[in-house]
């Protein structure tokens, strides 16, 4: 099933040059991560060395080689959020979820990421959960925000 869905994406990129990054981004957005089987499939169908695909997929932050949790928590640590107390918020989220930034909780419920600027600095410090923005967050508000997604 997964392989079929991936085949459709690969079809769009056949016989074109310079497509690897765009192809992997499409796979990422379709599956939310890039499973190993699909990398093998891309390699075989497009005759791109495995090592080459891994190099690209591991270089970019927008691509994930591990599955992500049901809820994605992004804590902004852009400069504006940083000077408004973002690091304290991140500490609190890490403590509450018992994972470090970049990790996923054991029950696969949350993946925590620190991001560099979401472009809504007026709301800083910002925490985004599943695309929903929470502005002017303080460490005291963190539990309350996370509780709604449990």
């Amino acid at each position, binding site marked *: 099933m997964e392989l079929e869905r991936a085949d459709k994406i690969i079809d769009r990129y056949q016989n074109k*040059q*310079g*497509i*690897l*990054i*765009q192809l*992997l*981004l499409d796979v990422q957005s379709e599956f939310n991560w890039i499973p190993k089987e699909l990398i093998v499939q891309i390699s075989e169908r497009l005759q791109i060395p495995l090592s*080459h695909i891994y*190099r*690209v997929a591991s*270089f*970019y*932050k*927008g*691509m994930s080689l591990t599955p992500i949790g049901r809820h994605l928590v992004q804590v902004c*640590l*852009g*400069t*504006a959020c*940083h*000077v*408004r107390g973002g690091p*304290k918020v991140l*500490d*609190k989220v890490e*403590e509450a979820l018992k994972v470090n930034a970049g990790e996923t909780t054991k029950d696969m419920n949350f993946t925590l990421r620190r*991001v*560099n*600027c*979401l*472009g*809504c*600095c*007026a*709301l*800083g410090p*910002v925490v985004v959960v599943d695309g929903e*923005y929470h*502005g002017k967050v*303080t*460490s*005291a508000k963190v539990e309350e925000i996370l509780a709604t997604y449990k």
Partner: protein
Amino acid sequence: MARVSSPSELERLREEILSNRDPNKPCITICSGTGCHAYGSEKINSAFVKEVKGQGLEGKVDIRRTGCHGFCERGTLVVIYPEEICYVQVQPEDASEVVQSVKDGKVVERLLYTDPVSGKKIVRESEIPFYKNQSRTVFGNNRRIDPQNIEDYLALGGYSALAKALFHMAPDQVLEEVKKANLRGRGGGGFPAGRKWETTRNAPGEPKYVIVNCDEGDPGAYMDRSLMEGNPHSVLEGLTIGAYAIGSHEGFIYVRQEYPLAVENVTTAINQAEEYGFLGENIFGSGFDFRVKVHRGAGAFISGESSALMTALEGIVGEPRPKYIHTAVSGVWEKPSVLNNVETWANVPLIINNGAKWFASIGTEGSKGTKIFSLVGNVNNTGLVEVPMGMTLRDIIYNIGGGIPKGKKFKAVQTGGPSGGIIPEQHLDAPVDFDALTKLGSMMGSGGMIVMDEETCMVDVARYFVDFLCDESCGKCVPCREGLERMRQVLDDIVQGKGKKEDVELLEELSRLMTKASLCALGATASNPVLTTLRYFGDEYRAHIEEKRCPAFVCKELVFYHIDPSKCQACLICLRNCPAEAISGDKNQIHVIDQSKCTKCGTCFDMCPPRFQAVIRLSGEPVPPPLSKEQRVLARGKK
């Protein structure tokens, strides 16, 4: 839609669009930029659509969703035309009252902006001090355009510069005009765009490429995003004019994948422009062909560097390469390639329409035109501001930005992102232009301007940028990869109170080496945040190293929270909110923090009622020993 095949047809089309529009018909514009989107502008839009229908005004009142207006601090912004009534912090439940007021020709007083100085309500957008002190020549059209509708852009004179260039100017003349205007690149270095174009034009090899860099990675900067999301046609028009001047028939738009709306809007814009004949084959019937492709970035700060971006366009890992030969001569697939950022391209139609003379009349000797900044951090009016080059930092931060919140003191402003530097108060009267900022040890960069108040630790800020760059360095060259890592270790030591006297010298030495020996600008400029903080705030480094003290009370390891027994009223608030359960006490028992349990999250400090101010922060001095049980009994009534 039939293709527009001559400049006169374009004019006819424009007249037709305008004649179908009644300038007196009310139009409710709703800002849908990133900031307002985060405030929930989507819901507000639905509420307005529902109200307009519900109050029987369909067809009588227009609703337009626009790109970013700029005044993000007060989002969601709603502006009513033609009167230009500006409502701030609008909520979905306000829709009914606003629509009713449009019907009655009235103003909803309570949603107007209140001037903090005079206390007066301001009706018109252009009279709000935040907007009044700007000159929004590039960014101003954002608020008048639905980015998904090409007709809005055409109604404002869109694509007339392209028509002028193609039919009334030879490619050489276009190039000369841009050179004469002295348009300098808005992406970072400030290299003259005209000279770059000329190099590519004269370089051997075909095809030639033109590229838009929308890989805006500086944390705290979102100008390019807002322009790309809000007015994509202005960028496309500039790019096409550039392509004509250079002799290129293929262009790329490189957008970070973190900007999905920018990708969507520019893709729509390209499709519409092709449909109308402003892109593709035989543009306007001039015989000039030009095609554009969108390429999504995949999340790497380094990919904003010109050679790295071009490598990424080829589909490989976006790492920089040595530039013994400039990318203008050998870029994408080793062909001559011009890369400029979003704002630079968006300036081009203005130069062609109004002339180099007009453009060069704005700004300073060496920096012409306007510049868009994202004014963020500890400032009252967070937002995007566009000012003529040469305005002072003070004017931007105080007249437009409204100064520092909560009565705190200004400490420094950071410009230029991780490659830039930190500018202290004594230089607030410096004019903002490429050369003046470089002289201060910082740089213009792409336009991030982060204001910092007295509670910001400068060593921590330097460490923040070094940490950011450590993660983002591609690792290809040793000076950058190892130099940054070593710098991070040294700064980590300093902020943790483990700094040594010779660390400052070591940081300076590392900086010198990285500046000279790094492969690309990321490494070569990476030490700027460290060098400028050392230059202007050397005493803070000394306090951390010699006294183990963080003057701004930021560095966790050097700060201790303590409850002043003479002020504590045993109200239990800090005790109940302490996430580490480090506070002991009772109703009539003065609270004490157990330092061995304290995680220094600062919750107690934030929660202690302002009338008590019992929780204090200590740094560089010993924490007083805990009181005995008897001493902790609170004697009510006296302080």
